[in-house]
C-alpha cells in the first residue's frame, strides 16, 4: 500500500486512541472531583498527570492556576490547543478523510459523524457543557470506532498499520499515567504510608483496571500489585506488556526489506517485559524504568515512520 496511506491510517488510530486516553483521565478525575475529599489531593493528581502528558506548559499559557473545571475544559474542549480531545477527534477525522477510500465506509462514517457531533457539541458555551457526559461520549465513540475497525476491515496492511498506531499510543498513554503516579508505586510505599485511596481509584479507573484488580487479586490494593497489573500482565488489555505484544505482532505482519532492525527492537521490548519480574524493575527504580520505556517507544515510532510511512526521498 502507499506509504502515505499507511501514515494517515497510523495517525488516524493514534488520535482516536489518544482522545480515548484523555477522556479516561478526565473522567476519572471528574468523578473524583464529585466525591467528598480534600481538594489538594485532586489538584495534586491533576498536576502530576498534566506534567506527565506535557500539558502543563500549554495550560499555564492560558490559565493562571490549576482549577479542576478549567483543566477539564482545557483538556477536553479547547479548540485552539492541538492536544485537546476535541483537536484529536478533528485530526483523526482529517487523517481518515485523506484516505477515506482505504477505509470501509462504516469506519469512515463512524469517524466522520464523531467529528460532526463533537463540533456541534463544542460549539456551545464551554460552561454549559456537561464534562462528565462529554468524556463518556468520547469513550463510547472510541469503543465504537475500534469495534467497527475490527468488525469490518480486511486483515491486510491497512489493518495492521491501524493497529500499530493504536497500541503504540496506548503503551505511551499507560506509561505516562504510571509516571504521574510513580511516587505511590515506589517499593517502599507498600510498607510505609498507605497512599490516598482516591489516587488509586483514579489510576485504576483511567485504565479500566479497577474491577480487574478486584477480580485478579481479591485483596487490598497494594502498589506492587498495581504495578504488576499495569506493566507485566499479558491478559490486561492496557498493560505495557500487552501493548508491546500487539505492536510486535502487527509489525511482523507488515515487515519489508528494511524493517528488520525495527522489528528486532519491538521484539526485544516485548521479550524484556514478557520475562521481567516486578522486583527487578523496582530495584532499578520505577521512574528510571518508565523513562527508558518511553524513550524506546519514541525510538520505535520514528523507526516505523522511516521504514514504512515517510520513506526518505528516492535517489
Amino acid at each position, binding site marked *: *500500500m*502507499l506509504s502515505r496511506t499507511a501514515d494517515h491510517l497510523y495517525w488516524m488510530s493514534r488520535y482516536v486512541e489518544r482522545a480515548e486516553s484523555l477522556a479516561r483521565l478526565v473522567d476519572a478525575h471528574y468523578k473524583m472531583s464529585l466525591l467528598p475529599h480534600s481538594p489538594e489531593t485532586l489538584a495534586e493528581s491533576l498536576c502530576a498527570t498534566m506534567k506527565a502528558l506535557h500539558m502543563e506548559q500549554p495550560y499555564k499559557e492560558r490559565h493562571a492556576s490549576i482549577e479542576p473545571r478549567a483543566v477539564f475544559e482545557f483538556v477536553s474542549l479547547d479548540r485552539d490547543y492541538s492536544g485537546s480531545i476535541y483537536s484529536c477527534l478533528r485530526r483523526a477525522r482529517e487523517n481518515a*478523510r485523506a484516505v477515506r*477510500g482505504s477505509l470501509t465506509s462504516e469506519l469512515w462514517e463512524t469517524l466522520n459523524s464523531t467529528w460532526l457531533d463533537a463540533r456541534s457539541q463544542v460549539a456551545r458555551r464551554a460552561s454549559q457543557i456537561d464534562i462528565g457526559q462529554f468524556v463518556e461520549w468520547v469513550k463510547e465513540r472510541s469503543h465504537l470506532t475500534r469495534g467497527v475497525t475490527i468488525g469490518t476491515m480486511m486483515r491486510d*496492511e491497512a489493518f495492521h498499520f491501524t493497529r500499530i498506531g493504536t497500541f503504540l499510543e496506548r503503551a505511551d498513554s499507560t506509561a505516562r499515567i504510571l509516571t504521574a503516579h510513580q511516587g505511590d508505586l515506589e517499593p517502599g510505599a507498600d510498607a510505609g504510608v498507605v497512599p490516598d485511596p482516591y489516587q488509586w481509584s483514579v489510576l485504576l479507573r483511567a485504565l479500566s483496571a479497577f474491577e480487574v484488580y478486584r477480580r485478579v487479586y481479591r485483596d487490598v490494593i497494594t502498589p506492587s500489585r498495581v504495578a504488576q497489573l499495569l506493566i507485566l500482565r499479558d491478559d490486561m488489555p492496557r498493560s505495557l506488556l500487552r501493548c508491546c505484544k500487539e505492536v510486535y505482532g502487527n509489525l511482523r505482519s507488515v515487515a519489508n526489506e528494511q524493517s528488520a532492525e525495527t522489528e528486532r527492537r519491538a521484539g526485544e521490548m516485548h521479550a524484556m517485559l514478557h520475562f521481567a519480574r516486578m522486583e527487578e524493575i523496582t530495584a532499578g527504580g520505577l521512574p528510571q524504568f518508565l523513562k527508558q520505556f518511553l524513550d524506546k517507544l519514541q525510538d520505535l515510532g520514528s523507526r516505523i515512520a522511516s521504514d514504512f510511512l515517510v520513506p526518505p526521498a*528516492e535517489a
Partner: protein
Amino acid sequence: MMESLAYPAGESLKEAPVGATPYDEMYLKEGAGRAHYLRYAQWLEDQPAERLAQKRAEADALFHRVGITFAVYGQEEGAERLIPFDIVPRVLPREEWIRLEAGLKQRVRALNAFIHDIYHDQQILKAGVIPAEQVLCNSQYRPEMQGVDVPGGIYAHIAGIDIVRDTSGEFKVLEDNLRVPSGVSYMLENRKMMMRLFPELFSAHRVAPVEHYPDVLLDNLRSVAPTGVADPTVVLLTAGAHNSAYFEHAFLAQQMGIELVEGQDLFVRDEAVFMRTTQGPQRVDVIYRRIDDDFMDPLVFRPDSMLGVPGLLTAYRAGHITIANAIGTGVADDKSIYPYVPEMIRFYLGQSPIIGNVHTWMLRKLEDRDYVLAHLPELVVKEVHGAGGYGMLIGPAATKREIEDFRRQIIATPERYIAQPTLALSTCPTFAESGLAPRHIDLRPFVLSGSEVSIVPGGLTRVALVEGSLVVNSSQGGGTKDTWVLETPEPVS
C-alpha cells in the same frame, strides 16, 4: 383536473429570458404531464407534503454523514458544503436517450480525432477548416505533445459534454469538457440516495442502471495501458484532501479498487513512474489524473507546482505511462474551438452532426463583434478560457454598468470572448422554499473512450436553484438531481 399536477399558483416561471417560454421537462403547456413523466407526476401528487419534507431532511443528513461534500476555497479550514440535492428526478424517455447517445459518441469520436490530428499531421488546419492560428496560438495547445503517440490514439478518455434543451425541446451541446470533467460521483450518489429514499419509485419505473460506471471506467483505463503491459497498475492522481472535488477522487478510487495518489507519492526513475509503498517502489502504468496540465510536471509546466511529478513528461513521451486524459486535450474544449466541432464531425467522420451547437458569435470576427456589441443586453458573453460560470456576462440579468465593463473588455481584447444567445434552458419541477417550482437544468453525460466508446445512461443533471437563474455550477449555488433514462418507451398505467 390535470392542472393540479403542475405548480402551485404563482410558481410558473416568471421571466423567460428572451420572450420564449422554456421547455418544461415534466409538464406540457396545458399543465398535463408528459407521457414519460405521467406515473411519476401522479405519485408526486399523492405524496403528503410532510413525507417529502422529511425525506429531504433525511437526504441532507445522509449526505453529511457520508461526507459527500465539496471543499470551499478561501474559507475557514475544513469548511465543506453539501451540493444541494433535489428529490424530483429528471426523466428522459428511451427514444430521446438513444438519439442523444448516438450524438454524444459521434461528437467525442470527432474530438479525439481532432486532438490526434492537431498533434500529428494537422490536416484539418491544412484543409483550412479551422484557422491555424486559432489552434497553434491557443494557450491550451501543448507543443510538448507534437508527434507523441498515445495508446489507441485516445486523448479524451473521459469527456463530460454539457447538454441543454432549448425552447423547441431540441438538445444542443453547450460545452465540451475534455480536461478533468467532474461530477460523476454525484450521478452515482444521487441514484443511491433516490433508491434509498423512494424504493417504490424504482419498482414502478424501469430506470436504466448507472452503478456500473466505475467498472466501465476501470476497463477503459486498463485498455489504454502502454503496449506490452499485461496487468496494468492504474492509479488516480488527486491534488489532495483540500481540493474541491476530493470526495469524488476518493470515491472513484475506492469504487475502482485503485490507489488514490498525490504527486508526492509518485516518482520517476529511468523514464518509468513508480509509487512509494510500504513494500518499496511499485511500477505505475496508467494515471487517471484529476489535476490540470499546468500542474502535472514542474520540470515542464509550472515550476512552482507541488502537485505534480517531476520528470513525468519524459516517461510519458517515452510511452512508459498512460495519462488519462492526455496532456493537451484543452486545445479541443476551449470555447474558441467549440464553434468548429460540427465541422470536425464532417471532416473526420464524414457525417452530419446529430446534436448541434448553440449558435456562437466569435468576437475576433469583425461582423460578429459588431452584431454582439449592438445586442449585449440580450446575449451571454463568455470568456474563452473561463470555466465554472466565472468570467461571464448574462445580458438580460446584468446591470448597465456590468454591460459597459464587458463592452470595454471586448473592444480591448475581442479574441478573448465569444457570445451566444441567452438560452431559455429547459426547466424541471424542483423543491424551492415556496414549494415545487420550475428551475432551469442542464445535463452532463460522461462519455468514456478506450477500446470502444461507451456512456452510462443518463449523467449528472444540474439545476439552478435560484429562480430565473441560468447558472447551474455548484460553485455558484447550483444543485443536482438524479437522472433517469427509462428503459421502456413509456410507463403503462
